[in-house]
């Protein structure tokens, strides 16, 4: 009986090990669970700042030496040391099923790799599959042993439906969620656009890493002179006469979409990487690592 083909085979696992090693070399000082929170607390090891004492607060952190010198009650604050959650949103809409290999398979490998590195870093990793809403999710996991659950979850995922990031984020973050890093792996072909959905993440105070996938044929399609274009998600058909100028304009629109995504992310201090499915996924992961957002 031939061995069952699996998305995450031995080669893939070896590459994950390699990526893990690379992550340690690229960010040498980072420790497990050392993702720093922006929240300042009165307890902790690493000093952060001073602030004025407010009546009713515990006086144990009042800096008496400063009071004697400046005659002001100042409290010492410390950075909160917490394992921040990572929310990996994987686009499972029908458009992700296009290409050879499909964008979805490619995205699942990226997701698996990021999940692996995150779990090894003792981060809490949430996996969320979304299309026009939250399709399925694997709740917060921690520790290396959880990687197999993550693999099973990813392998069981299928593509269907259209894309609505705003609806998906609203559905997920409407329940109480801790602030963390949101990784969105998608082709970002959302008929409603990405701006509203990203605004929502900003509103929830989430950090964002946008991983934009596309296939080469998507950017430079080889089409006959006249063609019926069928939308993989919506199913609507458009009769188009292909001309060189139209193809040129199409590429311009496509590139403009990517640039808009990148600009939006930069403006908000978020991370953005884009790649075609022809790029080896490990190269993309290394690119993500170099950005420093995923590994701190």
């Amino acid at each position, binding site marked *: 009986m031939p061995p069952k083909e699996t998305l995450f085979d031995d080669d893939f696992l070896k590459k994950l090990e390699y990526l893990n090693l690379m992550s340690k070399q690229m960010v040498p000082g980072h420790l497990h669970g050392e993702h720093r929170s922006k929240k300042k607390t009165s307890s902790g090891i690493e000093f952060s700042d001073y602030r004025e004492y407010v009546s009713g607060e515990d006086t144990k952190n009042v800096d008496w030496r400063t009071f004697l010198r400046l005659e002001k009650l100042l409290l010492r604050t410390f950075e909160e040391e917490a394992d921040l959650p990572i929310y990996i949103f994987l686009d499972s809409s029908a458009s992700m099923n296009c290409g050879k290999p499909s964008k979805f398979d490619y995205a699942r490998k990226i997701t698996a790799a990021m999940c692996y590195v995150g779990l090894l870093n003792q981060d809490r990793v949430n996996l969320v599959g979304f299309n026009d809403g939250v399709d399925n999710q694997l709740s917060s996991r921690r520790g290396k042993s959880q990687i197999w659950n993550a693999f099973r979850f990813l392998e069981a995922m299928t593509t269907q439906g259209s894309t609505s990031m705003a609806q998906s984020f609203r559905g997920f973050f409407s329940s109480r969620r801790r602030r963390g890093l949101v990784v969105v792996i998608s082709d970002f072909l959302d008929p409603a656009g990405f701006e509203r959905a990203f605004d929502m993440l900003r509103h929830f105070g989430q950090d964002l890493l946008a991983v934009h996938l596309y296939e080469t044929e998507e950017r430079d399609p080889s089409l006959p002179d006249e*063609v019926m274009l069928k939308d993989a998600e919506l199913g609507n058909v458009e009769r188009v006469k292909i001309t060189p100028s139209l193809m040129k304009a199409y590429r311009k629109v496509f590139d403009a979409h990517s640039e808009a995504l990148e600009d939006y992310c930069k403006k908000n201090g978020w991370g953005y990487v884009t790649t075609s499915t022809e790029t080896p996924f490990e190269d993309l992961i290394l690119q993500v690592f170099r950005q420093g957002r995923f590994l701190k």
Partner: protein
Amino acid sequence: MNLFVANPVLIGALTTVSLLAIGILYWIKPPPPTVVVSSSIFWTRLLSERKKSSFIDRLRWLLSLIMALTIAILLTTASGAPELFSSEKSEIENVTMILDNSGTMATFTADGSTRWDRAVRVARSFLTEAHPSAEFLILDTSGQLVSRTTTNKWEALEVLEELEVSFGNNVHFPVFTVNEARTMFISDGVSSIDVPPGIEIISVFEPAENVGITSLSINPGLSGLSASPRGLVQVTNGSLTTKEVSIRVSGLGDANTRVSLTLDPGRSGLSDIDLSGFDGGPLRVSVTSVRDAFAEDDLAYVIMPSSSKYTVTLVTSGNLYLETALEAMSNVNLLLMEPEYYDPGISTDLYIFDRFDPEVLPSKPTVTFLSAAASLPQIFNQNIVTLNSLERHPVLRGVTLSDLRIGQVSNPSFLDENSQILWGDAQNPLLVVKDFDTKEVQIGFSLEGSNFPLQPAFPIFLSNSIEWALENDLPNVSSPGRVRIPLANATVVDLEGVSVETSYFDGTTMFLATAPNLYSVHQGVDRFWVPVNLTNLEYTLVNRSDLNTETATGMSLDSSDGLGGEVKPILWKLLVLMALFLVTLEWVTYHRRITV
């Protein structure tokens, strides 16, 4: 300028069909293929922006349609071989074109084609470049074309293709109504054709080398008189140089013999060939020489009579002429018999009755010299000149009688429904043959009452009669052309066994012998040979022409004397080139998305 096309109706119909086809192809297109894309949001956005430029698309479509239509029109017009003529020349000449298709036109020239090919080429060149409004009458010297109706140039070209060289003897300048048309005669000038004055003669003559058989016989009518059969072959050198000639005679089985001759230009040589090694039957005689340009006279056929002896019983009371003549025949065993000892059942091949009318006829062939019953009111005096043709009965072949005198004739009561009078009439039947159960030859006058036995032709006549009665007579030799056989409803096949088309008229069978051959004629179980030979000095002397290699009227073979306006024969080529250019342009613009 005027535009003429070969068939405007056809071109019009073709153009309409092409335009309709193109129109249908443009309007009824198969649906384009469906391609699934990740999302159509970019395309929808683009197309909504591009709706403004739909005018350009319509323009592209229109340009493409115009190009396709232009290509179709150009090609269909070119298929009609259009020609552009200047309308300035007011007079359009009508032409009567006479082509010499006599046998010598089959002579090969130095370029490998025949004189006939050159003649057709010249005629075609004239016709092709002639004004489309000109009328043409195409005629030939062999009577193949009987129509005297003028045609346009395209129909004339078709008529030209039907003509071929004829080897018949009936060569003459055609009779036609002389009008104001220009008349041209294309010939090699070899055949003896009287060309009326005022005719433009275009020569296709080119000197050629030829050696041919001009006469062939096997002691005609004398086979029984000579010691051994001999063949007489006359060969003529029609070349301009001395020729070494090889004559080969081949018969049934492996029998063959070869003779060589050296002939000076224009000279004939006679070869007397001993045929004792041949058993009889068809003989093939061929001559070979270097660079022979006319093949049809290099081959001839002849039928050699069987050399076997036969027994002839002469029933007579005594006839010195007959006995002497029969005893002189080498292939006859003569048996003399008195009339009172006549026995119809003895072993013999043929009976000759001399003034004896038997009560019981034998079952064998007979030759009867009848008793004289009455004297002619006046002495019959006639010269008979033999004609070596099929119209002449085999009994009379080779028989030349001069100053024959007949004084007494027999009673015509011996005539019946099977009698065929060869000589004389129903009142005075002088020579009668019957071919019913057995063959009979009846001579209706007394030998003693005439000077016939004293004529040199008497033994020939006697030999012919015996050979014919024994069905061993020499076949008639004919020339190419229409051959008539004195047999009703016979079938004819050539040497290759191919059946020849025949027609029947007045108890005879006719067929057309287009070239020298040996034909086999069948009627029931009977069969005989008809050799058709081109043994004619007029054909062999292929250089006997008054014309030069240049035309008699000074016109060059390759130049065309304009028969109409200024000719633009390359117009159709230009149209095709334009169509090809447009096809290329369409291809380029299509692949650059300029056209659809």
